[in-house]
């Protein structure tokens, strides 16, 4: 190409589709029940799979006999995932699976598999580090500055302990797939956040060439970070299919297994000590933290959160291994925990010195990454304004004499959100039809809609004229939808591929308009000479000049160079405030109002962005008030692998939500930043601080259940 097109986003005041809020394209098909999720599919000849999972937290399989199950009429295939000798490290571990003509027969057959276990000792509770023994692996000490001297010089010191438990993703569509393994080729319809990466991973594990694996998914019923790789159940499903002569097999986790092994967010507990000045400046920070990510231990994230440039820090982090399902990325991995620990400790310091926590956060924003300092200060003020902080906030414990106390709490968040590596293809046909093809996936975040908006903006066409193809492995590969990286990637690849395709079109059309290709623009359904609107062709007429030759051009997002192009970038900030009422007689916490101020760079669709923030807050309120995977120390089992006792927030539990998207021009000019994660981070901290502010004592451990609240009020450990 002679000239590289100018890919930059049009200036704010010249955008026609970007920055507007067309309704989500998949809305009608979803709200009418016509959207086919992979768990809805029933390809010809499909068999139903069912799992047998380990009832024990830690056990060795000593023998397994599938002969009775195999003879059951209707059973077509039995696969042993844990042969004799396998040591299983948590309840829910996959033991065996059956494929049969009906789901009822498959389930019945799993009950007829005879397994003998040698039950081994287990350890499942990580709240008390002292009891963890050899299951705890302490990391090295991290030392910044001279914390001993800083604490000795401090005008005030506050100390506290805080905890945030394991929660599960609880995707409504469980993990699984329909999979068909015939000869050396595989068709798979998974529930995945990673359509483009799925075949490569499966290929390695099944020794089938990736080119022979076709992956297709139109809709996914929730992932939240837990659905990237093919997982054990894809391997089991594939083998069931192969053993059944290549018939497709549907194998999804039952709800109990989903809650046990479908992924979870690691816990984090910490003892934190802060020292500083009476004006609110924090000068010293000490953290001893621990937590668990299941059998594969992970330690909590670094402290302090956001205020990473504090001058004096001592930190020791410990990973605790437990016999429970393995952690997975959970919508801002590590960040909810880190935000909770840091923001609660700062709130306690503010209380210690008798200051308004908003002022303490603003003052110590000096220790945030330089580029974000003023953003945090602006957002703290904005959130305080929207929450009526000045009017409603009272110092801790001074919230009236009645049994119901009102309190406010603040917390902050940070996230990257740059676009992942990916490619898109833009196609212009001689008949004027336009297609965007990219192997991404729409998790319900609005990916389809924003790609189409970007293409419509770039081609100067209505959205209805753009045909979008996503969701298969046969398209140019995008990346997995994790880390809030999708919107940055697909907006960039769509923009660049569309501009590249237009450049080709301009080369063909320019002579007939008596202009150079780089003098042309596509606006309002026309290709015209910039500055000379009279010299124009309709889009259709321009495309007819292609004769019989289609244009198909690629666009790529390369993370290393993306920031220089200015299309997408990273670094989002957010501040949130919870306004709660706590009944000190029952311990019940009610959300009155919840305010979120969020920056995410250039916003392509404000309505969808707002929905993302609403969703993140609502999910967060569930984790702040209700959610916890409860382990039984005696049996090692999960006590609530269901949805009655693993409680999600309902429509009445969330109060009124106020979302303010921080779309000031200085944020807009940075480019597109992902939004799935950032607003999901600070909710536990904001709610925890609000409850503490209301009732006058720190409730250390999330969730803010009546039990935890009353324990704190009564002086028992919360």
């Amino acid at each position: 190409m002679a000239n590289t097109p100018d890919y930059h986003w049009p200036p704010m005041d010249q955008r026609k589709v970007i920055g507007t809020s067309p309704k989500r394209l998949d809305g009608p098909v979803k709200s009418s029940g016509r959207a086919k999720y992979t768990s809805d599919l029933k390809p010809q000849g499909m068999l139903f799979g069912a799992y047998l999972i380990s009832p024990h937290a830690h056990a060795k399989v000593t023998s397994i006999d599938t002969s009775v199950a195999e003879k059951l009429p209707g059973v077509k295939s039995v696969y042993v995932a844990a042969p004799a000798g396998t040591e299983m490290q948590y309840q829910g571990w996959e033991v065996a699976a059956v494929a049969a003509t009906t789901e009822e027969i498959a389930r019945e057959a799993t009950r007829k598999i005879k397994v003998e276990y040698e039950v081994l000792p287990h350890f499942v509770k990580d709240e008390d580090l002292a009891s963890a023994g050899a299951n705890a692996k302490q990391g090295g000490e991290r030392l910044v500055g001279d914390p001993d001297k800083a604490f000795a010089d401090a005008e005030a010191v506050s100390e506290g302990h805080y905890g945030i438990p394991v929660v599960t993703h609880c995707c409504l569509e469980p993990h699984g797939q329909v999979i068909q393994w015939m000869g050396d080729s595989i068709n798979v319809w998974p529930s995945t956040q990673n359509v483009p990466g799925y075949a490569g991973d499966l290929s390695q594990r099944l020794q089938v060439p990736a080119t022979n694996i076709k992956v297709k998914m139109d809709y996914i019923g929730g992932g939240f970070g837990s659905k990237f790789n093919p997982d054990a159940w894809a391997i089991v499903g594939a083998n069931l299919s192969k053993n059944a002569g290549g018939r497709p097999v549907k194998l999804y986790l039952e709800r109990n297994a989903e809650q046990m092994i479908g992924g979870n967010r690691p816990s984090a507990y910490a003892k934190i000590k802060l020292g500083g000045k009476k004006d609110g400046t924090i000068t010293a920070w000490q953290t001893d933290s621990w937590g668990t990510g299941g059998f594969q231990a992970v330690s909590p994230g670094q402290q302090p959160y956001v205020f990473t440039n504090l001058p004096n820090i001592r930190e020791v982090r410990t990973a605790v291994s437990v016999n429970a399902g393995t952690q997975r990325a959970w919508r801002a991995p590590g960040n909810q925990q880190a935000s909770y620990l840091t923001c609660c400790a700062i709130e306690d310091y503010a209380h210690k010195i008798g200051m308004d926590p908003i002022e303490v956060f603003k003052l110590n924003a000096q220790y945030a990454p330089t580029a974000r300092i003023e953003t945090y200060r602006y957002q703290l003020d904005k959130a305080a304004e929207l929450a009526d902080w000045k009017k409603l906030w009272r110092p801790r414990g001074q919230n009236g004499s009645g049994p119901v106390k009102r309190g406010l709490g603040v917390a902050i968040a940070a996230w990257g959100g740059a676009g992942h590596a990916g490619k898109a293809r833009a196609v212009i046909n001689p008949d004027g039809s336009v297609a965007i093809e990219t192997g991404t996936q729409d998790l319900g975040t609005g990916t389809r809609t924003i790609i189409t908006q970007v293409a419509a903006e770039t081609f100067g066409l209505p959205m209805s004229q753009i045909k979008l193809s996503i969701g298969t492995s046969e398209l140019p590969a995008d990346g997995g939808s994790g880390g809030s990286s999708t919107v940055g990637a697909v907006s960039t690849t769509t923009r660049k591929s569309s501009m590249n395709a237009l450049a080709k079109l301009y080369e063909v059309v320019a002579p007939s308009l008596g202009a150079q290709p780089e003098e042309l623009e596509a606006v309002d359904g026309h290709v015209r000479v910039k500055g000379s609107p009279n010299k124009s062709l309709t889009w259709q007429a321009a495309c007819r000049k292609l004769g019989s030759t289609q244009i198909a051009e690629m666009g790529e997002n390369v993370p290393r160079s993306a920031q220089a192009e200015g299309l997408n970038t990273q670094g989002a900030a957010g501040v949130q405030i919870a306004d709660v009422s706590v009944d000190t007689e029952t311990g019940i916490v009610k959300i009155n109002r919840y305010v979120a101020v969020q920056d995410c760079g250039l916003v392509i669709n404000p309505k969808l962005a707002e929905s993302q923030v609403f969703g993140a807050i609502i999910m967060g309120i569930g984790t702040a008030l209700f959610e916890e995977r409860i382990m039984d120390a005696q049996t090692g089992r999960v006590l609530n692998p269901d949805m009655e006792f693993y409680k999600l927030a309902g429509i009445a539990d969330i109060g009124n939500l106020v979302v303010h998207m921080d779309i000031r021009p200085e944020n807009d000019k940075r480019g597109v930043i992902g939004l799935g994660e950032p607003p999901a981070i600070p909710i536990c901290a904001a709610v925890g601080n609000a409850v503490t502010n209301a009732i006058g004592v720190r409730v250390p451990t999330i969730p803010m259940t009546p039990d935890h609240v009353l324990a704190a009020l009564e002086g028992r450990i919360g």
Partner: protein
Amino acid sequence: MSSKKDSELPVPPKSGFSRRGFIRGVGIGSGALGTGLLETEAAAAAPATLGPGPVPITLNINGKPVNLTVEPSVTLIDAMRNYLDLTGAKRVCDRATCGACTVIMAGKTVYACTVLAIDAQGKNIETIEGLATGSALHPVSKAFYDNDAQQCGYCTPGFVMACKGFIDEHPSPTEEDVKHGLGGNLCRCGTYMGIRKAVLQAAKEMKGAVKNG
């Protein structure tokens, strides 16, 4: 937590209308099912045991009788999804907690995961597939679309049916009514803000509509 409306719980057996009566009824002949007369006639018949193997049943779904053969232990949601390819309703908690499987049966919203298919015989079952014809959207579906009340969308069909049932019984709800009345359905993506608005919009648009219409 939110309370659940009675209308969203499985319908308790009415007098003379029991699971056993149904089972007997099927033994007499499924041709009479759907008339609503069967249970009283069947009450006098001798006890019969059905299952555990598959038995033929007839479900009246979206105004049409559908014959299928299922084990008596099969739930309505599994019958719909696995045997009839009616996959709008989802199986999520499978224990009457989340509402993703909500359908309207005999005029009441029920959790289809907690109704046996054989017990659903003789009752009008309305699923999301029957809400609208062609490509047009039912006012409730349209209200969900208009108010961005879906993200991943897996809870959405259940929510839409719960809203339909709720509006049928509460044609002029307040926002407080909505919070109370839709407490029997759960969403993981957090679409409740849109749903609150959607229910109010749909109620407004459905004013004057025939019940169950």
